[in-house]
């Protein structure tokens, strides 16, 4: 949770994953149960949407480790989604593992040369350029009609298979999404934890980090590629759920949603993206009858969280947990407390 490494976090006994990563992995693992536990299409579809949104929001989380606010999530989602759709349609590839790898690798490979161009930008300029990227993508999807199907998108992909078993009905599609989300969470967790000090240094002050000998560009490039790959996984899951790859699934303003999930949930923790996606997707589903209201709800939440709780809901929860714990400890050891003071 804390990003500024203090003396104690540098200690040799520091575990690789913090509680947040373990909870995140456990939650996604637990979601594997849902397709077996229920056949209610509403619950299945909601879980599907939440996992996809959460996975996409993770890439916002990764980029925020480097203090970069990225609007390019839909761009890489589209790359991943269209890649798998094309592989299925043109080459008849249906294996979930092959498609999953492709949906991660293609966006990541595109992100490397792209990152070399745009990662030197910071702050507002980075925001603007990623926003422009989403617009370019929309135009490209329409212009490259022979490849992308233009305004019609791509439809009629064969069902995904896993070791030869066809995953076609709603609960099986959810299984695929669960798998992709798990890979996404695991990748994000391993990556952000492995390089947590490097990222913390870049986030706080990259010029200083650079001058102390940290090759910032290398971490930024890899971070951008990993974030792109995780978005690609979400794009695959989305295309697999909707049975179509269409430009409207990757509109430039959909990036606002993923940013909202991460910021409202808490941008300092991997759990934030998942919690934000869970709550907000459920909320917009709840408002489905008055669907036009959900952007307004998102807007209010964004402003309130920015003004009142910059660490988001997770920050709020961990503050409460810490407070409860500290009072419990104080009650248990009143003698020691007094001795200290």
């Amino acid at each position, binding site marked *: 949770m804390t990003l500024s490494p203090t003396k104690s976090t540098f200690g040799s006994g520091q575990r690789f994953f913090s509680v947040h990563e373990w909870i995140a992995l456990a939650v996604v693992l637990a979601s594997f149960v849902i397709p077996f536990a229920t056949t209610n299409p509403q619950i299945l579809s909601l879980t599907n949407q939440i996992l996809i949104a959460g996975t996409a929001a993770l890439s916002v989380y990764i980029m925020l480790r480097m203090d970069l606010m990225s609007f390019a999530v839909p761009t890489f989602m589209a790359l991943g989604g269209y890649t798998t759709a094309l592989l299925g349609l043109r080459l008849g590839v249906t294996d979930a593992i092959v498609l999953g790898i492709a949906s991660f690798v293609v966006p990541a490979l595109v992100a490397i040369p792209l990152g070399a161009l745009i990662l030197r930008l910071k702050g*507002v300029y980075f925001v603007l350029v990623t926003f422009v990227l989403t617009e370019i993508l929309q135009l490209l999807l329409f212009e490259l009609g022979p490849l992308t199907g233009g305004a019609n998108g791509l439809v009629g992909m064969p069902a995904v298979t896993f070791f030869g078993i066809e995953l076609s009905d709603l609960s099986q599609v959810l299984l695929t999404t669960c798998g992709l989300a798990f890979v996404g969470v695991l990748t994000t967790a391993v990556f952000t934890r492995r390089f947590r000090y490097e990222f913390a240094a870049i986030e706080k002050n990259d010029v200083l980090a650079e001058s102390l000998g940290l090759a910032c560009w290398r971490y930024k490039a890899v971070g951008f590629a990993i974030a792109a790959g995780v978005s690609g996984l979400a794009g695959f899951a989305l295309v697999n759920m909707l049975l179509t790859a269409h430009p409207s699934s990757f509109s430039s303003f959909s990036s606002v949603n993923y940013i909202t999930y991460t910021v409202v949930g808490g941008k300092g923790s991997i759990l934030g993206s998942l919690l934000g996606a869970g709550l907000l997707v459920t909320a917009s589903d709840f408002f489905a009858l008055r669907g036009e209201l959900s952007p307004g709800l998102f807007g209010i939440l964004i402003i309130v969280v920015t003004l009142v709780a910059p660490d988001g809901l997770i920050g709020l929860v961990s503050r409460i947990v810490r407070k409860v714990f500290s009072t419990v400890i104080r009650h248990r050891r009143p003698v020691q407390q007094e001795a200290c003071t």
Partner: protein
Amino acid sequence: MDGIITAGLIGVSLGAQYALLALGFTLIFGILGVVNFAHGGFYVLGGYLTYYFSASLGLPYALALLLAVLGSGLLGYLLETLILERVIKDSQSTLMVTLGFYLIMTTAFVVTFGPEAPQFPFPVTGVWRHGGVYFPYANLIVLMVSLLAIVFVYWLVYRTNVGRSLRAMSEERQVASALGMRTKTLFPFAFALATGLAGLTGGLVTPILSLTPHIGDPVLATSFLIVILGGLGSVTGATVAAFIVGMVEAYSAVYLGGSKGALALFLLVLVVLVVKPSGLMGKEARKA
């Protein structure tokens, strides 16, 4: 030949509209360091207020437009003083706040006016023609008003004490306020000026183009495009870039068709950002 001139005229009038929009956007960035994601929202607000005052209350169009400008300016003023001022130092927070505000605005338009485009034609019809060259009177009026407004902004920013203070504050807020410039009144004023300009553009243009709650999205994208091209925070850059974009759009719509022109523009912007992030006319406008 006539076709080229007609397209050029359309390009100039598009450029003038875009300049109005982009001036507001670039002023807010230059002076406050805020990327205003709600800029498109104020454009739509201007459109709906003009529609409301003229079509529903029956006021004359010019008066309705004036009220719309005041209304958009007032809302911008309130947004700055009540919310933005609390987080003004952190560019990521201001970005999130304006983004949130834009979402709220869009929702409010849908709830108040419905998702469909209202019947809202421009009050002046007819086409000016000279030989084979055509130019609708509506576009002519838009062009004139836009040019007047641009001149007004230039006069305000470069020839008045208010403008000098604003430019001083954009250089260094603390020093400027130490020298007696009132950031607490001038910042909201600058924000109101910018949102008022967006409202003016909306009130002028939406009767010609279209008025729906979500029309702000492409407007925001276009504003981004222009200010990046011209250099964030640069008034002259924004004006020049706006006319470039207007011209490219007009000619590509006639001669290329589809979205190739827009694609070319976006790629141009991408190149500019990478090669010279400060834009065509920019100095290092402001540390982002």
